[in-house]
């Protein structure tokens, strides 16, 4: 269970519905580990700063997390978390391992501008 203030996606249907309904979505798929927790924390702060973006997380160990793990954009990733940015239902960016607030901000400005 992910102990964060973010809304956790419970299954792939929730993710598919979200990216179908919302233009800008960012999903951090990980565990409660050292590389993941900072990204969740930054997402929590950015939820307030960027209200037009839907920030979510997803438990890496839930079977439905394959919807993230098996993305072609995540091929070769072997560092948690896998973070995926969707715009209009399509993957526009994916990152592996920890990212700083500045790196996430730069990605947001790049793909969601």
């Amino acid at each position, binding site marked *: 269970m992910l*102990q964060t203030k973010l809304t956790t996606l419970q299954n792939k249907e929730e993710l598919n519905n979200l990216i179908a309904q919302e233009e800008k979505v960012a999903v951090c798929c990980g*565990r*409660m*580990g*050292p*590389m*993941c*927790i*900072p990204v*969740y*924390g*930054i997402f*929590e*702060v*950015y939820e307030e*700063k960027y209200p037009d973006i839907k920030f979510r997380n997803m438990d890496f160990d839930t079977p439905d997390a394959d919807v993230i793990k098996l993305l072609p954009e995540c091929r*070769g*990733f*072997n*560092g*948690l978390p896998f973070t995926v940015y969707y715009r209009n239902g399509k993957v526009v960016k994916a*990152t*592996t*391992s*920890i990212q*700083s*607030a*500045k790196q*996430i*901000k730069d990605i947001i400005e790049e793909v969601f501008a």
Partner: protein
Amino acid sequence: MENNIHSHDLIIIGAGPAGLAAAIYTSRASLSTLVIDESMAGGQIKTTHQVANYPGFVDPIAGHELARNMRDQAARFGTQFELAAEITHLQLDGSEKIVTVDDTPYTTRNIIIATGSSPRLLNVPGEIEYKGSGVSYCATCDGEFFKDKDVTVIGGGNSAMEESLLLLQMVKSLTVIHQFDELQAEKITANKVLNNPKTKILWSHEPREFIKNNEKMLTLAENLKTKEIVKLESDGIFIFAGMVPNTGLVKNTPLQLSEYGYVVTNENMETNLNGVYAAGDVRVKKYRQITTAINDGTIAALNIIQKH
């Protein structure tokens, strides 16, 4: 009026244990306190799996939970936070200090630098490029991706050996690359790694480049005695090369740093600049623990409260 909105009695840069301890004290003493951090609150404890030696908790507490408790405690006393924030300008000299965050200037007469320390990067080609796709800094997080595979570990200190022990439970083989002829880690941990039949060691070598070759990682390592470059192929590389102080922000200020880049303070946590304090892992000290960081933050806060 605009200036009043952004003026505080104290600005703390860094939301780790030192900064949060100081914030709890100063906020509780009714000093308007702003804590700024480039990430979320908690410093290194937020990424610590479990904390077992912090007094007051009979059972180990998850690091992220302890971090959240500290932040919420400070917030309860009125501390304001600017988290995931980028400091674009910092003026430490003069009586009025200025910290500019995302183009918004904040002024104060007292600053505590509590920016902590971070894992040291090797700064060799391939390190950043392959982070998460061949290069890792966390065995707990990424070890399982290398189950029954060959991994390379860079480093010979306590972190490197503790993480190696974890990896040895999963991997087929583990090769340690270390710059010296002996490990710096505590003997009991180091011996467990050395005595494991899966372990190999390259003594007196330093990595010079990491290259991705299809699914494999190549490490080019220099023998520091013969200068010969050897190529080591593995499935993944784990780097544990010690810590460095987070003092990049103050590099171009008159703040006095040690030869290793740590902030120099006296026993009151005062730096060479009037009104500027340092606390926690970022300052020159012998022991870097959560408890000693809390100690530093408390002392800095009490000095500021007394002078206010």
